[in-house]
């Protein structure tokens, strides 16, 4: 069989249309583009409300474009923790992208090169390749959509029911059924477009029998189904015209609707990934210089940073943050997703109120005023109890596939709530105490170094003599009696290993990590400035701390205030000492243990490996909890929550975590490496009734046990 001439391999776009009909089509297409463009303009008007202080400099944009697009193409952030969704979204994404590019190519051929220059490239081998690629990727799209539908219709993960934990059942705002229905329409429309596309191809092949079926396999299958119907050319023509229009009209309507519907995430999520702040949540943003005289933080849309407003539209409601959030998991009135959606609804409602005139006014004058005064905190918006339920553990930011900064946005709202006095009374008095005495325990600052008195050696005062390691001890490790036992164990180990170290004694202040996350930005600045001034006068090589919260702030936040030093967690230093042989502890303990990653050591600072390496070196067998490393579950103490009472009766995050550990079977120890974890989990082991089954050890206590051969409990008087 001789194939037809390559030059003839093509298809007719406006098959058999009259000029008038063709004009009608173009009018509709232009209208669609206008509606689309207005929609994009609307989004821009929304983002103009914000301030651009923290947008990356233009010079960074090309590099960021590459990184963001790479994340998108690889689906790394989408497939994470949910491979099913990874595959389904890849199908939809690549199917859609290729079909979209195909449509653009066709439009360029039809509406530009051929119409104006009479040059048709949509033919021959190019056409055949085009045909086969689109045909196959169309199948990928259909497969992806079907997988998504199976998930929504049959698997029904709870995160997709969109019920709000921040509203009571029965509240009109509780059920977000409209989102559920909207998502079905979205999937349905895409499927409709894909299927009518194939149908159209099938009818065309049935009519024209072009003979290169291998390049349109799906269309050919449809044609085989149509042929036995024995329809004549005229009947097929009617069918073909009908399908053409119903495909085409829906397609241009879909394009017009992109900025107004879930489809907008194709643009906004991509843009959000490009602008993604690699330090989101690890380093919170300061109050912009030009806003020092205004109230801090967010209470209205006009207070937002531009990228945060964009992120509101980037959310796809995927529920990864909803699932990861410890507040949500323990029944608190908070889901990071629902905060983002509530803010988005506020943002859109304010735009709606402004009308077309408001949008165009903003676009033309660039004044950014449309709806910027709308308040986003309150009973009918984001509720204060929602904002205060957050532990600032960054699980949401870590989980978000599109770079939304849920926790930092919540932090910004807290800043304003603190200024407006909408804060828990206990938190208020703790902040007052920290301001007065420099520590959250309300202890006289002179007592900070008192834990050293029970040691049988002197701990150097790093303010008075040079040291190799400056040990920033932190509040809990300094003042909490249980943590002091760990603190002294660390001191004994460093002393035994011959490390040259010292502390700041009463020169140290609370590092400010939790103060900042509680929303008291001014107090954070004051504490940080005091610590930086003290540290700057000391002579040392690096800072070591056993407190992950202090670690995070010293490492990621002090540099912006002029204090850039090398900061390490004590587990890093202790691992070095074990590896170098300075601490001879190898293979001494044969315990079965599990290890809890502290949020601020793990997720915030990537400190996953040193604690595990130490456990291995000691000879312990580590049984991982299901939620480990970057998916570690917050103990509930972060973000100032340790100073805010938990609601009565509700499960505490720490209790949820202990139950997870107990589920692993027989364990000797629940191992932690954060002073707050010691307090939180020792309580939770008791309150969950597991005191007989599980005991807590701070990692250092195990090292000391391995070193001196005695149980750590006996080594602490």
């Amino acid at each position, binding site marked *: 069989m001789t194939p037809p001439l390559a030059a003839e391999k093509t298809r007719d776009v406006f098959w058999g249309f009259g000029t008038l009909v063709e004009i009608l089509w173009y009018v509709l297409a232009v209208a669609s583009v206008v509606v689309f463009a207005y929609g994009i303009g609307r989004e821009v008007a929304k983002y103009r409300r914000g301030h651009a202080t923290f947008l990356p400099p233009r010079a960074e944009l090309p590099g960021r474009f590459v990184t963001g697009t790479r994340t998108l193409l690889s689906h790394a952030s989408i497939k994470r923790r949910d491979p099913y969704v990874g595959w389904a979204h890849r199908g939809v994404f690549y199917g859609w992208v290729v079909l979209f590019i195909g449509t653009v190519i066709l439009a360029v051929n039809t509406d530009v090169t051929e119409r104006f220059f009479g040059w048709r490239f949509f033919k021959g081998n190019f056409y055949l390749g085009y045909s086969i690629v689109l045909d196959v990727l169309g199948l990928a799209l259909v497969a992806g959509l079907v997988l998504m539908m199976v998930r929504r219709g049959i698997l029904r993960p709870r995160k997709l029911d969109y019920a709000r934990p921040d509203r009571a059942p029965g509240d009109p705002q509780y059920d977000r059924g409209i989102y559920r229905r909207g998502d079905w329409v979205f999937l349905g429309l895409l499927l409709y477009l894909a299927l009518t596309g194939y149908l159209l191809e099938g009818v065309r092949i049935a009519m024209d029998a072009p003979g290169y079926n291998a390049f349109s396999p799906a269309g050919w299958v449809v044609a085989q189904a149509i042929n036995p119907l024995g329809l004549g050319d005229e009947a097929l023509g009617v069918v073909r015209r009908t399908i053409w229009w119903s495909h085409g009209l829906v397609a241009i309507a879909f394009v017009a609707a992109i900025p107004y519907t879930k489809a907008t995430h194709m643009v906004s999520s991509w843009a959000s990934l490009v602008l993604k702040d690699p330090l989101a949540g690890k380093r919170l943003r300061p109050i912009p210089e030009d806003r020092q005289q205004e109230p801090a933080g967010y209470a209205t849309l006009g207070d937002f940073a531009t990228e945060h407003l964009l992120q509101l539209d980037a959310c796809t409601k995927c529920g990864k943050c909803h699932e990861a959030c410890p507040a949500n998991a323990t029944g608190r009135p908070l889901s990071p997703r629902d905060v983002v959606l509530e803010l988005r609804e506020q943002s859109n409602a304010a735009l709606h109120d402004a009308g077309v005139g408001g949008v165009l006014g903003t676009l033309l004058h660039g004044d950014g005023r449309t709806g910027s005064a709308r308040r986003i905190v309150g009973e009918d918006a984001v509720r204060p109890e929602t904002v205060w339920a957050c532990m600032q553990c960054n699980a949401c930011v870590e989980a978000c596939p599109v770079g939304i900064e849920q926790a930092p946005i919540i932090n910004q709202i807290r800043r304003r709530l603190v200024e407006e*006095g909408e804060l828990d009374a206990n938190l208020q008095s703790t902040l007052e105490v920290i*301001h007065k005495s420099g520590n959250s325990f309300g202890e006289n600052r002179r007592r900070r170094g008192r834990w050293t008195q029970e040691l049988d050696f002197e701990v150097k005062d790093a303010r008075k003599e040079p040291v190799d390691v400056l040990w920033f001890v932190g509040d809990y490790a300094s003042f909490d009696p249980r943590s002091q036992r760990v603190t002294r164990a660390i001191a004994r180990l460093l002393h035994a290993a011959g490390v040259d170290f010292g502390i700041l004694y009463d020169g140290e202040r609370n590092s400010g990590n939790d103060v900042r996350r509680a929303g008291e930005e001014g107090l954070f600045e*004051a504490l940080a400035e005091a610590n930086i001034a003290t540290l700057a006068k000391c002579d040392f090589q690096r800072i070591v701390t056993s407190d992950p919260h202090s670690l995070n702030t010293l490492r990621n936040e002090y540099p912006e205030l002029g204090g850039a030093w090398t900061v390490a967690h004590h587990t890093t230093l202790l691992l070095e000492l074990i590896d170098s042989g300075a601490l001879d502890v190898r293979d001494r303990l044969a315990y079965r243990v599990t290890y809890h990653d502290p949020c601020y050591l793990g997720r915030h600072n990537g400190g996953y490996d040193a604690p595990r390496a130490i456990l291995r070196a000691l000879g312990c067998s580590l049984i991982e909890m299901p939620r480990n490393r970057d998916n570690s579950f917050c103990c509930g103490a972060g973000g100032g929550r340790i100073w805010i009472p938990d609601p009565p009766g509700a499960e505490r995050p720490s209790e949820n975590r202990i139950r997870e550990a107990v589920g692993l079977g027989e364990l000797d120890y629940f191992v932690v490496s954060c002073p707050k974890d010691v307090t939180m989990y020792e309580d939770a082991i008791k309150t969950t009734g597991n005191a007989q089954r599980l005991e807590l050890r701070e990692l250092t206590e195990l090292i000391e046990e391995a070193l001196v051969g005695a149980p750590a409990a006996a080594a602490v008087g």
Partner: protein
Amino acid sequence: MKVVVAVKAVAALDDEAELVDGDTAVDPDGLEWDLNEWDAFSLEEALTLRDGAGDGEVVALTVGDEEAQDSLLACLAKGADRAVRIWDDALEGADPLAVARVLAAAIEPEAPDLVLCGVQSSDAVNGATGVAVAAHLGLPHVAVVKRLELEAGVATVERELEGGLVEVLRIRLPALMTIQTGINEPRYATLRAIKQARDKPLSELGLDDVGLDAARVGASAGARLRRLRHPEKGEGAEMLDGSPEDVAARIADIVKERMSA
């Protein structure tokens, strides 16, 4: 509506504070200063009254050395319009009557509609200064107010008596009241607000500026401190040692024994 709030920076004593000057004073290292708890409530009440009236001024006034500066800044940060600090070294260790004399001299030219004081200070616990100020100014006064409503220059107040009894009474302004805790919820002053408060007017006056001389103030004092001492440790209290479990076991024994007696 002009309200003068007389406030005090109070000292919290560290457990290890040492007595100095022949046991008539405490080593300053053993003291931490803060705005008196009662004064946070009286200031809040003043701010609420001013804001409710729609205009007016709240002036925070204190007798104290530099240690009192932060407390005044906190008042300004919370919303006081201006602050006045009066000090002279002759006022070191001044008793409530001497302080009242100085406060009265400073308040008089202000001619306020209302003077608010805390019922007492958490360190000295005299419960005396406010009413003594009223005596000097010849102002009508009510002590231990736990509710305050103003209408047309007449205040309806609730005076908190012993045993949960409340007396409701009316008093015409200008007047002086001492405010009890719990009357409102004092607001939080953010550090930013405290920093910004440095731009608000804070005047520092000496005794001359309020028309007093050091000798006269000294003579108006009601008492002289002979000496300070630590209370005899646990006068009679037998301390129960050991773990919480040990303590609980001992308490249980004592309770059971006493209740069956």
